[in-house]
């Protein structure tokens, strides 16, 4: 008798979890999916809204630094081009660039889009990719470094 009641209670708990947990997970999943477009961590140059829309809001711009586009100005003033291979944005920054900042590497700049279409960064972050290798291997690839970079972009 007691065993039978225990069995029924356990079944009820299982059914309850079976209904509540998937519903909850689905709700969270759908919410996150819905939020995806409004919670952008950074904009690519071609997704960038125009300056009026942003109205002085601080945003992040992400992309790749264009080769040979880095220009050192007076003091720590620096400017460079950020591209997503569709559009390109000129970024100006007054400060120290991070250790891994480089041409043809990922970068995330935080700041404001000005009316003239340039981006004034308050903070510049270097993005690191998921590829790791020892320097000797990188050295041996150096002749094919362009090839390696192209491959990386395709990935």
């Amino acid at each position, binding site marked *: 008798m007691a065993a039978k009641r225990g069995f029924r209670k356990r079944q009820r708990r299982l059914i309850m979890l079976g209904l509540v947990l998937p519903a909850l997970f689905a709700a969270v999943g759908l919410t996150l999916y819905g939020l995806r477009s409004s919670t952008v961590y950074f904009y690519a140059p071609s997704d960038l809204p125009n300056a009026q829309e942003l109205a002085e809001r601080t945003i992040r711009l992400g992309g790749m630094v264009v080769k040979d586009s880095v220009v050192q100005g007076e003091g720590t003033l620096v400017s460079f081009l950020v591209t997503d291979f569709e559009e390109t944005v000129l970024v100006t920054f007054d400060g120290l660039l991070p250790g891994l900042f*480089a041409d043809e590497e990922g970068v995330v700049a935080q700041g404001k889009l000005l009316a003239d279409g340039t981006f004034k960064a308050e903070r510049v972050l270097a993005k690191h990719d998921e590829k790791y290798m020892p320097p000797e291997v990188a050295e041996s690839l150096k002749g094919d470094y362009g090839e390696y970079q192209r491959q990386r972009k395709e990935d």
Partner: protein
Amino acid sequence: MESTLLGQDFTREIAICWGVSALILGGLMLHAWQALREAKQGRD
């Protein structure tokens, strides 16, 4: 444009990361081991 941290000295940062990891995990293990020993002794 330089894009490598190769050749720079990060001994301090690496030591902090490994040291803190060892300290926290080691501390937890030691605490668990002591508690188990006390529980064993207390049984007699």
